[in-house]
């Protein structure tokens, strides 16, 4: 399942639906990314721009690679775009596998690739205006640890 959407979602309901009807699965891992505002850097919103058609294609490629590499039973990715306020979930990655290591590794792999290879761009909205979030070299390093 791949969902690119500007609508809010319920992380728990999404997980319950994803886990249903897989008696062969022994492990489920979920990562939910959330909009963060800190005392150091308070933001009023995060605005995500997206190229939906490309996102669908790229995420499908990343998902298929994760399923093949970690022998996952299933993997699902939901990513939002539009204007989100602090505390709201931005995205969720879920994996199902026979055992926990594959489920954890698959979720990490998906997250590392989504950060650098899925066409989304974040803009932080503060009292002073909006500013594009800069890509982090650490995200490239995290992705590159998986090799090709």
């Amino acid at each position, binding site marked *: 399942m791949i969902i690119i959407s500007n609508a809010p979602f319920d992380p728990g309901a999404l997980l319950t639906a994803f886990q249903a009807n897989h008696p062969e699965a022994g492990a489920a891992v979920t990562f939910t*990314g959330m909009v963060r505002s800190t005392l150091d850097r308070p933001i009023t919103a995060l605005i*995500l*721009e*997206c*190229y939906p*058609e*490309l996102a*669908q*294609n*790229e995420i499908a490629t990343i998902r298929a690679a994760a399923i093949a590499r970690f022998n996952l039973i299933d993997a699902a990715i939901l*990513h939002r775009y539009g204007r989100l306020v602090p505390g709201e979930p*931005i*995205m969720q990655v879920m994996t199902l596998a026979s055992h926990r290591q594959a489920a954890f590794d698959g979720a990490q792999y998906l*997250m590392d690739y*989504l*950060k*650098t*290879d*899925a*066409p*989304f*761009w*974040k*803009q932080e909205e503060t009292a002073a205006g909006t500013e*594009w*979030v*800069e*890509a982090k070299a650490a*995200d490239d390093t995290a992705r590159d640890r998986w090799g090709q």
Partner: protein
Amino acid sequence: MKILYFAWLRERLNRAGDDVSPPAEVKTLADLITWLRANDEALDLAMANPKQFKLSKNARIVPWETPIADADTVAILPPMTGG
């Protein structure tokens, strides 16, 4: 040929895209970027560090050496910050 710009590149150019008709010698995406930059000072400045950009052809990310044709849609993608 349709060109799409995203995020801060779109903002710096003040438009989301262009329709262009490159000359016959523009055969690859790399040729296209060279040609676009030569004809657009704002794009040339915004792409001063070209290797940070990924390029897509018809909604697939492809290498810069990929051949292109008139009917293609090409997007110039600044470093992505999703997740």
